[in-house]
């Protein structure tokens, strides 16, 4: 399989301009200048044609930022991303949004739908503008996509605020699919759906992939769903990819201590005669991207950290058929701990 998306050493730093008060204040040492946020820090990865790459990691680690760069709607501060061999966005420049072949389903279905437009127009706008469907055929096209995501085609003339959260999420999915993309960046696409609708949407994604060979970047914090849909998984921690490999190898034989901790943290909901659930949070806090630690970003929470981990930045290395960024990856045995 060839790479459809090729991200090379991409970084994103958000800088906030200082206000006059802050600039004067900092000159006198009475306040600080706003700090840059290192949202994505030197990430390289490939997404192959027709595959689903899952992207997981804790809240704030940079998943949406990376997703937006791959969708070509956010320029990286450094590095580049190629889509089918063409620059999707060039370093530090404006995004080259030349292609409709990549579509994004945004994390916030409320903010991403224009409140003044009817749902039918929201879905039809893109395909008609790009000549994918004729104006006369667009109503039928809208009906088709609405039923595909499990909504009644009759709702096409309603406005977004007339829908529930999960219904809006599905409208956003229909809008993206109507563009007949080759690739979808899905940012938490099923987070606000109840499990039965979630199953319906996940099955739809699996079907599109089987039938149309749709390539996907699937961002989610729900490890159950990610494992279910992904061929490969990338684990992100504070702006960096720490482990990437096939879903099977990463889930069954994780080689990064953070992946191990993440898998162990999945709440186990047991429903038999009684209902039991235990949450096993990862100890310690996610460090701040305003002030990232030196060395391995995970070292403050890592049960296996040694002195080198606090100073030396691990790079991604091939270990056991996947890539891992851990200084101790080859020597650690993480298999002994409880499987999820």
């Amino acid at each position, binding site marked *: 399989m060839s790479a459809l998306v090729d991200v090379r050493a991409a970084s994103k730093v958000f800088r906030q301009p200082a206000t006059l008060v802050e600039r004067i204040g900092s000159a006198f040492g009475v306040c600080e200048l706003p700090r840059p946020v290192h949202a994505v820090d030197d990430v390289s990865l490939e997404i192959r044609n027709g595959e689903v790459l899952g992207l997981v990691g804790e809240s704030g680690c940079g998943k949406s930022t990376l997703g937006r760069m791959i969708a070509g709607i956010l320029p990286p501060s450094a590095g580049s991303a190629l889509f089918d061999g063409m620059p999707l966005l060039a370093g530090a420049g404006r995004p080259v949004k030349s292609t409709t072949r990549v579509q994004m389903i945004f994390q916030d279905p409320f903010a991403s739908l224009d409140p003044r437009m009817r749902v039918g127009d929201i879905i039809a706008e893109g395909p008609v503008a790009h000549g994918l469907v004729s104006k006369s055929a667009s109503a039928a096209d809208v009906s088709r996509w609405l039923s595909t995501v499990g909504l009644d085609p009759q709702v096409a003339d309603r406005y977004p605020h007339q829908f529930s959260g999960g219904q809006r999420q599905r409208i956003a999915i229909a809008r993206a699919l109507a563009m007949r993309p080759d690739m979808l960046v899905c940012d938490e696409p099923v987070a606000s759906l109840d*499990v*039965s609708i979630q199953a319906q949407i996940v*099955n739809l994604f699996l079907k599109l992939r089987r039938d149309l060979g749709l390539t996907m970047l699937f961002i989610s914090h729900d490890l159950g*769903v990610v494992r279910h849909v992904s061929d490969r998984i990338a684990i992100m921690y504070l702006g960096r990819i720490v482990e990437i490999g096939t879903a099977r190898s990463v889930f069954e034989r994780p080689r990064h201590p953070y992946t191990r901790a993440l898998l162990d943290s999945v709440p186990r*909901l047991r429903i038999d005669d009684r209902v039991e659930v235990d949450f096993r949070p990862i100890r310690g806090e996610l460090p701040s991207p305003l002030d990232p630690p030196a060395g391995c970003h995970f070292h403050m929470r890592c049960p296996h950290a040694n002195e080198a981990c606090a100073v030396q930045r691990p790079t991604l290395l091939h270990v056991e058929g996947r890539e891992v960024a851990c200084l101790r990856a080859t020597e650690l045995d993480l298999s002994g701990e409880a499987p999820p």
Partner: protein
Amino acid sequence: MTALLEVRDLATHFATRTGVVRAVDGVTLSLAPGEIIGLVGESGSGKSVTGFSILGLVDPPGRIVRGSVRFEGRELVGLPHGELRSLRGRRIAMVFQDPSATLNPVLTILDQMRLALEAHERIGKAAARARAAEILTRVGIPDAGRRLDSYPHQLSGGMRQRVAIAIALLNRPALVVCDEPTTALDVSIQAQILAEMKSLARESGTALIWISHDLSTVSALASRILVMYAGRVVEEGTVGDVLSAPRHPYTRGLLDSLPSLATPGQDLRQIPGAMPSLSDPPPGCAFAPRCAHAVDACTAMPDLVGAGGRGVRCHRPLGDAP
């Protein structure tokens, strides 16, 4: 214990061009101080509208057409807007499913939190900053002190959600309606929020309505659970009873769709069909068109029957002798 909140036969309808949408159609529930109930159910079944109705936040063309909402002994349906507004944020708060409904895009996080505090008490700038930072830390925002000066768009999706939770908790209200409050959060942060909610319920006696499709958080937090379908409660009971011995076929279908039960790459079990349109529901049980157990009798509306807080709205509940 006397009830803090008593909702009786609540019905909220929206008049639209294509007919009346019966978003909530006869919901009854009650809540004691410090009690946590989970509200689950199909997307579009009326969970959020139930929450809005309790807080008096239904905008036209929506209207509470029937029923009552008694809170601390006072009837809220029909209460003048001013009085409702002074209750909101102080005694009752809501964490909206859509964090942007709470967060003003042009104000920093600190300014929004200060406004929320000042609306109900006199508080100095430095004290407000300290309170805001403290509560953000408690909901798991790293480096909270520095994040206070950020604008909402500068935060990640999950951070915005936590800020919305923090604002709802600021004034330690007696009742908080949390609408899908942890959908964008990873497990470690979820665990922290759950612990925070539990201690709030225990220490301040805050009661919670926890609307969520995530059965893990509901099970970890709530004592009772209500399952909604097409504007009505179709099953209720303790979390243990409802999840381990569901009696409504919809609840059963919901549990069968959990991804943990499936093999990776294979289709998940889903309930066939879709929820009927709420402006033109079939007569009788709204789940009947999708139900494998439906019989002729199901074309008549079943009542919610049961005792001791365990109820089911079904003519042929599971677990009954045939």
